[in-house]
């Protein structure tokens, strides 16, 4: 489905943000991407969203080249980016203005119901909590019914409790829509909770260090030993991604997993 082939991105200043990225996403698959700060995760999502163009390589969705924003690819940013002058309902309907009114309203009220915000239609974004606003942003991206949804640290500004409840919301939406998710996160537990596969990135230049499959049944129990085993593997890989290839760094100074970001 989504296919990145030897994608690189070199910024005008000469900064090599991504080098030779090869990545595939099957339909309905959930892939999480983790890695140290500045290893090109946001850059990668922006390329797939068509907000930026790769320097070399190709990005294809179902065989068609993705070089500009596509209706089949939705993106959710780290902050909700709701339009403050539109009500919650109008924000959700922002990307489906071309549809007939009844269809639009039906999709919006269904979306509000699914994110647990029925009755919030006429609120202004400023009257929402951070978690509610991010749910509205998710609804706004999903009502256009994309095939791929990109999420860039979507829950990082929220407390652990809200985050856990949004994971449930997201997985519930994913189960009915069977949309493919590519989610960038700094939170290893979040990655293990959500993903079928975890891509560990390595900085300078940004590239894929390793991939770790998560073969746990859903819903996942964060306290189970299997869960912890996977988390540990991801943390080990992150450690490795930061030490390997950085031979110039002081040899005795290995970063511990807890501080990998």
């Amino acid at each position: 489905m989504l296919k990145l082939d030897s994608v690189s991105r070199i910024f005008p200043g000469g900064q090599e943000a991504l080098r030779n990225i090869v990545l595939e996403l099957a339909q309905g698959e959930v892939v999480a991407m983790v890695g140290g700060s500045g290893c090109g995760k946001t850059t990668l999502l922006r390329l797939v969203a068509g907000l930026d163009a790769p320097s070399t390589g190709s990005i294809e969705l179902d065989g068609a080249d993705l070089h500009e924003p596509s209706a089949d690819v939705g993106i959710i940013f780290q902050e909700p980016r709701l339009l403050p002058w539109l009500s919650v309902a109008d924000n959700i309907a922002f990307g489906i203005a071309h549809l007939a009114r009844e269809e639009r309203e039906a999709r919006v009220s269904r979306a509000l119901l699914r994110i647990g915000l029925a009755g919030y239609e006429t609120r202004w974004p400023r009257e929402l909590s951070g978690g509610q606003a991010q749910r509205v942003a998710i609804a706004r991206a999903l009502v256009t019914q994309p095939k791929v949804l990109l999420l860039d640290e979507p829950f990082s500004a929220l407390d652990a409790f809200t985050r856990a409840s949004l994971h449930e919301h997201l997985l519930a939406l994913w189960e009915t829509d069977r949309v493919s998710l590519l989610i960038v996160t700094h939170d290893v537990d979040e990655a293990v909770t959500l993903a079928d596969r975890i891509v560990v990135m390595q900085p300078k230049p940004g590239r894929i260090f390793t991939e770790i499959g998560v073969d746990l049944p859903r819903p996942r129990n964060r306290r189970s030993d299997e869960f912890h085993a996977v988390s540990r593997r991801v943390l080990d890989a992150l450690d490795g991604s930061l030490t390997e290839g950085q031979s110039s760094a002081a040899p005795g100074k290995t970063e511990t997993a807890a501080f990998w970001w």
Partner: protein
Amino acid sequence: MSDTTLTHARAETASGSPRRAFAWKGWIGLILPVILAIGLEWGVRAGWLEGRFTPPPSKIAGTLGELFASGEWFRHALATGWRVAIGFVFGAGAGIVLGTLSGAVPMIRRLIDPTIQALRAVPSIAWVPLFILWFGIFETSKITLIAVGVFFPVYLGVLGAVLSIDRKVIEVGRVFRLSKLETGRRILLPATLPALVTSLRAGLGLGWMFVVAAEIMGASEGLGFLLVDGQQVGRSDLIVSAILSFAFLGFLTDALLAAATRPYLRWRDDLSTAEKA
């Protein structure tokens, strides 16, 4: 739903008594003008003040009444209002167009902004002799002066608003594949509207200021003409009547502009909404 009604009820009980106290405090502001008016009236009647220079309120009311009854007030107010309206439309229109272009296209900004900033340093009244030379002493020079006065605050306000639009919000438009035109209508316009309204109100205020200058420099009708006429025939009551009329019309048009745009600005999350909530 119950959630909303609850917060509503709470807000009401909470603000009940402070609001009444505030309304009462608002009246304090009236004490000074009322004392002044009574003092004037009394002073003139007692013969301590000369009514020719300091018109008592009763005299002003009488003059205004006559102006209304004869229809003169409407003739003058209409002439003045018309000049302000035309000057405002041209000045604000040019300010919006050039401000938007200058904000949106860096090349245009580099081209025109330095010149406009330099022209802004000229006190607008200083243009008057040149405008009279170019356009004669009739309507054209007056309206040009008003338009120039309105132009600068609108241009600056719109330019600043366009420049400060959040790139992140524009990106939302790109994600949903808006065309250039749609981006303008659905993102740029609403995002800049608060600043646009503020600058239009500032421009309107300057429009009223400059119409006075324009009419003082020579007019056969208009509220500014009444000012000059009152001075020449030595009738301070006429002058004060015209001053009050200016104040009233300036206030009225500003309030109308604010009221007309308020429905589009309800989303704002700042002190002006908190005050009205």
